[in-house]
């Protein structure tokens, strides 16, 4: 079996004593790192499920099938379903322009794409209030035409789009830069149209990177709290996303229900991490296979 062969190969490899520490120190270091991770990472993860199930499964499921919670789940999924594709199209377009062409001001453009990462989520919400709120630039016009953006779903979508704006572009730009332009040029020389080249050559090449970006983007879109909290208005059953529902329940001292809803978000985060790990594993395997074909050592 390939797996056992791999194991024995690594076990029979000579141990380089000069470039590692003594077993005692190694064990101490591993222990210290695990202690830190346990205190700050694994305990919070375990605490969510412990608190959620503390009052029993009945309370847990009652909190999740509560109409307000279900409305929050629907709104959260809907917002992510709008925000993620928008940022996906942007990410692909931006990566195509940046990775496949040379132009003046490229590094400035890349920095601008990163901008939303540097902005506090609260400020991300605030700027949309300044644009579309009743006191904002477009406020009077929106009121006159009876369009609600702030304290309604469009505002939540906009805030979500803002905070998740760089994720997919950030994943695709380095990937497409690394892949170069030869394959696309070859397709064009052989008579493929631009769109054919994109669908048949570029997209299959970037599919794992794209999926990776979409996973990160979705996780953040569903979990965003600060920006959404500023523009949502916290109307129960109407403009409450799952993270806001957690806050409301928590502030009402309904801890079991708050942690029950939080456990849904936690499960989602764990699933996203699992998908992310699988993708990383896939791309590593693909890279090793490519190296093997070219006959290069790792």
């Amino acid at each position, binding site marked *: 079996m390939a797996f056992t062969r791999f194991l024995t190969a690594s076990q029979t490899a000579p141990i*380089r004593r*000069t470039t*590692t520490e003594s077993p005692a120190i*190694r064990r101490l*270091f591993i222990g*210290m*790192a*695990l202690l*830190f*991770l346990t205190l*700050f990472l*694994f*305990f*919070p*993860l375990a*605490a*969510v499920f412990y*608190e959620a199930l503390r009052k029993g499964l009945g309370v847990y499921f009652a909190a999740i099938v509560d109409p307000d919670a279900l409305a929050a789940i629907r709104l959260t999924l809907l917002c992510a379903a709008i925000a993620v594709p928008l940022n996906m199209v942007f990410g692909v*377009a*931006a990566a195509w*322009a940046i990775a*496949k*062409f040379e*132009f003046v001001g490229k590094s400035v453009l890349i*920095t*601008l*794409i990163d*901008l939303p*990462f*540097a902005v*506090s*989520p*609260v*400020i991300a919400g*605030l*700027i949309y209030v*300044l*644009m579309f709120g009743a*006191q*904002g*630039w477009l406020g009077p016009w929106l009121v006159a035409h009876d369009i609600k953006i702030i304290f309604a779903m469009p505002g939540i979508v906009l805030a979500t789009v*803002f905070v998740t*704006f760089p994720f997919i572009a950030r994943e695709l730009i380095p990937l497409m830069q690394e892949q170069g332009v030869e394959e696309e040029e070859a397709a*064009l020389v052989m008579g493929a149209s631009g769109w054919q*080249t994109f669908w048949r050559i570029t997209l299959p090449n970037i599919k794992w990177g794209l999926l990776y970006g979409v996973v990160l983007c979705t*996780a*953040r879109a569903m*979990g965003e*709290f*600060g920006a959404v909290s*500023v523009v949502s208005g916290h109307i129960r059953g109407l403009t409450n996303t799952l*993270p806001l529902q*957690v*806050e409301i329940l928590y502030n009402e001292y309904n801890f079991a229900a708050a*942690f029950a809803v*939080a456990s849904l*978000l936690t499960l989602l*985060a*764990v699933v996203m*991490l699992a998908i992310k790990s699988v993708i990383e594993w896939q791309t590593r395997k693909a890279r090793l296979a490519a190296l093997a074909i070219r006959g290069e050592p790792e």
Partner: protein
Amino acid sequence: MPFRLKQRNVLPGFNLAMGYTLLYMCLIVLIPLSAAFIKTAGLSWADFWSIVTAPRVLASYRLTFGASLIAALINTSAGLFIAWVLVRYSFPGKRLIDALVDLPFALPTAVAGIALTALYAGNGWIGSYLALLGIKVAFTPLGIVVALIFISMPFVIRTVQPVLEDLEPEVEEAAACLGATRWQTFRRIILPAIRPALLTGFTLAFARSIGEYGSVIFIAGNLPMVSEITPLLIVTKLEQYDYRGATAIAVVMLVISFLLLLLINLLQRWSHQRYTT
């Protein structure tokens, strides 16, 4: 060759892709962000200054930047340590732990906030033991540091890890052959190689921490002058319909964030240069 904005290229779609990128970026990011600056430009300098240097606001800066600095420093040392252990040693469950390191990025901040509060409150798993020692974490500034450590933990690990992985073992072997101890090799050979990555991770963690809101508000206690962070102050002012005050403080935070972003870019360019030469 005459100067041109874009070099010749046979690939199609530059105008479409670039046009869409710029349009989308202006609509979603640049125009809304400029709204904050234009709104603040309506204030006189004296008004602006008195808003952003009011005692309560100054206290919130001190708390936000102080707690972020402490959290980023702790995460830099712990992150280096964890990255080292994950790259250099093998132990059972390593792949699972490696995957879980990204949890703070995937977990919604509100969930992190209530989970940490439950743990570090006086009756929590960790808080009850700390209470015996007379240490209160939840609802004090210390709680803010704990929340910021959690949400910014992966940055240093994830920036240092790839650099450690690519480090050539030959250099360390050479150092050992020349009679260096492990500690000397680490300080003189490894540390200089990973310093740019460490600094980048530190700055990313710091930048993320100063803007953090969701996880902190649950654990902080939120007392004005004591445990009120700047993003919370912005929200408080917004809820009181004090748009000018909220925006003025937001502009201060935005300028600091932009400077940090610039610094991160310079650091990454530096580490890239060092890495490739």
